[in-house]
């Protein structure tokens, strides 16, 4: 006979029984395991891989980044952006990034700023490509070096973060970055930059931009894991980095980097 007491007891047991295997399943989630290891600098070093051949300049990554990281959507500053390069027959190079390519490239005209545009005929174009940009999470980050109060720092797994409660807003880190990835957050007024979506990658998720890219042009990986597909590509294929001459040891690697890329 089912008494109320027995019913409650059995229901509780049944629920616990269902929940247990789920919890056990999650416990062995490899992504989470990897994220746990991430705190150990000896095992994890986050790197980024950009395949410029795959980028079509749709700007979905920029859009996703702004929404994910609460950078005001209509402000001109952005943690990541996409640049368009057009090299014409006369050898001249043209480049632009209207609104950081938040809305993609909606016109073939090159944005010269100050409200001016340059129309380039299709027949004159020798080559053209898109280059996504984000923080290089340098191994030797000048922004960390120049911060007078230590508000920006490097984690053991290689990502450079900013402590919003400690930043005094002097702008020295913005001046110190050769890649121009830093800016003042329009709302918090502290230094702001891409942090590889640290809140996501440490939970085993991908960065917002990687997830948003429909073409697989952006990938994140752990260079210390030889089995990581990103590591394999970096180790076996020809990749380049931006502005090597500054000695910052950037950790965003590019496939198909052209000499014209700034």
């Amino acid at each position: 006979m089912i008494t109320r007491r027995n019913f409650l007891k059995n229901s509780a047991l049944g629920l616990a029984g269902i929940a247990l295997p789920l919890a056990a399943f999650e416990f062995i989630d490899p992504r989470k395991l990897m994220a746990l290891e991430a705190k150990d600098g000896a095992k994890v070093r986050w790197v980024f891989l950009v395949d410029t051949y795959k980028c079509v300049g749709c700007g979905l990554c920029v859009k996703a980044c702004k929404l994910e990281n609460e950078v005001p959507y209509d402000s001109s500053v952005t943690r990541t952006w996409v640049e368009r390069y057009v090299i014409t027959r006369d050898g001249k190079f043209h480049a632009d990034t209207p609104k950081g390519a938040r809305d993609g490239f909606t016109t073939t005209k090159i944005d010269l700023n100050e409200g001016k545009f340059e129309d380039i005929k299709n027949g004159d174009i020798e080559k053209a490509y898109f280059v996504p940009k984000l923080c290089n999470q340098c191994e030797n980050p000048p922004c960390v070096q120049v911060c007078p109060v230590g508000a920006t720092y490097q984690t053991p797994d290689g990502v450079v973060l900013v402590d919003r409660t400690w930043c005094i807003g002097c702008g020295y880190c913005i001046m110190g970055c050769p890649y121009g990835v830093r800016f003042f957050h329009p709302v918090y007024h502290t230094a702001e930059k891409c942090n590889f979506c640290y809140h996501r990658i440490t939970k085993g998720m991908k960065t917002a931009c990687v997830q948003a890219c429909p073409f697989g042009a952006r990938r994140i990986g752990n260079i210390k894991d030889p089995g990581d597909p990103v590591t394999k590509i970096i180790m076996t294929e020809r990749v380049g980095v931006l502005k090597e001459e500054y000695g910052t040891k950037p950790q965003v690697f590019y496939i198909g980097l052209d000499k014209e890329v700034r």
Partner: protein
Amino acid sequence: MLAHGELWTVKELFVYPNEFIYWSVQIVMYPFMTGLVAGAFVLSSLYHVFGIKQLKDMARFALVFSFALLFVAPLPIMLHLQFPFRGIKVFMTPHFTSAIAAFGVVFFSYGAIVASELWFLYRKHFVEVSLSLRDKQDKTLPEQLRYLLFCTLTLGVYDIGEEALHRDEKAIRSLAGLGIPVACFLHGYAGFIFGSVKANALWMTPLMPVIFIMSAVVSGIALCMLSYIIVMEIRKLLLSRKRSASPMLRSTEEIKGVELNVIRMTGRYLLFFLVAAISLELLDLIFRGYTAVKSWDVLRSVIYGKDFIDIFVLQYGVGNLIPLILFLIPGLTIRRAVLGVALVLFGVFMMRWNVVIGGQAFSLSFAGYMHYHLPVIPHNWETFKEGLFGAVGIFILPFALFWGMSKVFPVFPEAGHE
């Protein structure tokens, strides 16, 4: 929503989306003001350390002025910070790989040196004033306060005997001697803040600290000369009024003679440092053009194109060449000196401007430019503090402080005390 810097930055051609003129007019004022501090101190030390007698009058004046300027030197940075009240963290949790973190150490050690030198220099005065007030019966409230202030300033030491004063002089000499390298460090280090930014093609040069020190001394001497002339002119004016009452006082002609003598002597030192500063700046320019590394194309287009008027006409022409000629023509007059030092001050200001603003006139992409439009009429707090009004306020403040300080530290020997 506008990002910081967007208000006064106009972009041209290919510029990264996050690039703006982040370091604006207050960062121009910062090296300008610390330069004046260091320069004024070096000028005063010329007398105390090297015993250049002709500069005796100027030495006291310059030291007090340097002290007044010292209080103003950190203010431009405070006005520039996004969080001015967090500025204290630079002293509390300094991150010593950063050049700015050393500011606390350098600033306070320099401040301590100037303050103690001032104390030794004016100790006799403090004792005399407090003793004369102590004996006075029925003190009024201002006199009571003055008595308290001067009693405190003596720090309880009332010995002004021959031997004690002699020891004071020795202390002054060694403090002034120690102060010269520290003053140079204070300002050379401001140059280092810029010179060590490897991301900035215009700033990165080991010459930057030395260039900054030279132009600092130039501007400090120029400001002291200008203020000295102004104060002397006011004294002459006051004296000519008083003289009609008591003809025993010094005549205006006498003062004029002293004034011209001091100005001519100081002018010689100004000339020396001016030549050194110009030579170093030209060396930097020639070296950049000769080596022509990757950044030279964009730098050339800024230096010889976009900023040509600012650099070659205003800084080198009006600010350096014309004063150089004015001081080189023999028979320097007060009027010519005023024009010369005013132009020198303007020239040094333009040099700071061309370094700070000029260094941000081109994009990190080396394929675009940024133009700075100084906010004149403020319409919010940001455009006030980082605009014309903020900058002018910073420039005026030391004069007001100097006026206040000269009540406690009289810069000229009083009548009958010479």
